[in-house]
């Protein structure tokens, strides 16, 4: 635990290793979640937690679904062009 904090702090001074693998695309999901949270919070005049969480979840799933679909379509296009 005592070593954890300096290690975490050191993480801000050197880049994280991200390989050129399909797994690296998972980094888009935290970003999609923040976009969903901020966008929904700007849209709601009054923020009730239960309704807010539900709406964020729906938007996050919609965005994620669209991004996955877009990735699949682009991959298919590249495959069609190159094959």
């Amino acid at each position: 635990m005592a070593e954890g904090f300096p290690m975490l702090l050191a993480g801000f001074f050197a880049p994280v290793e991200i390989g050129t693998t399909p797994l690296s695309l998972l980094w888009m999901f935290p970003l999609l979640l923040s976009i969903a949270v901020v966008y929904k919070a700007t849209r709601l005049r009054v923020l009730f937690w239960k309704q807010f969480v539900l709406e964020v979840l729906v938007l996050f799933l919609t965005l994620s679904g669209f991004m996955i679909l877009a990735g699949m379509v682009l991959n298919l296009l590249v495959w069609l062009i190159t094959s």
Partner: protein
Amino acid sequence: MPTKSNRPFDHTFWLCLVAAAAWAVPGGGHFLIGQRRHAYVFFAAIVFTFLIGLYIGSIGIVDPVGAKPWYLAQILTSPVIGWIGQIAQKGDYPVYGRPQDYGQIYTALAGLMNLLCILNAVYRAYSGIGETIGQEEEHG
């Protein structure tokens, strides 16, 4: 919270104050107009996004000289980013490849999301949304 009628200063000044607070601290504008829940959500989401970006790419991604367009978006998060940029300029922090791209995308988007929050806070202050439902929100 001061309302339009009992506020000791001009409405334009109030709007500028809300915008400045929203820029200084993400969610600060909403906090000022009484929309505390919105303020907490904005603060958590924007700071979290920015910190993830900084963690992925290192503080070297805040580069006011070599990556000016990214920096313009990053500085919208808070004036503190200018200070981080100064630190990054003085030190020799490695920045490269994918971590740099991901870090820049995260931090720049945090800034752009804060711009959305600034505009939203000013709009709410202008239209008096915080004043009319601020009390109601506390009990909601």
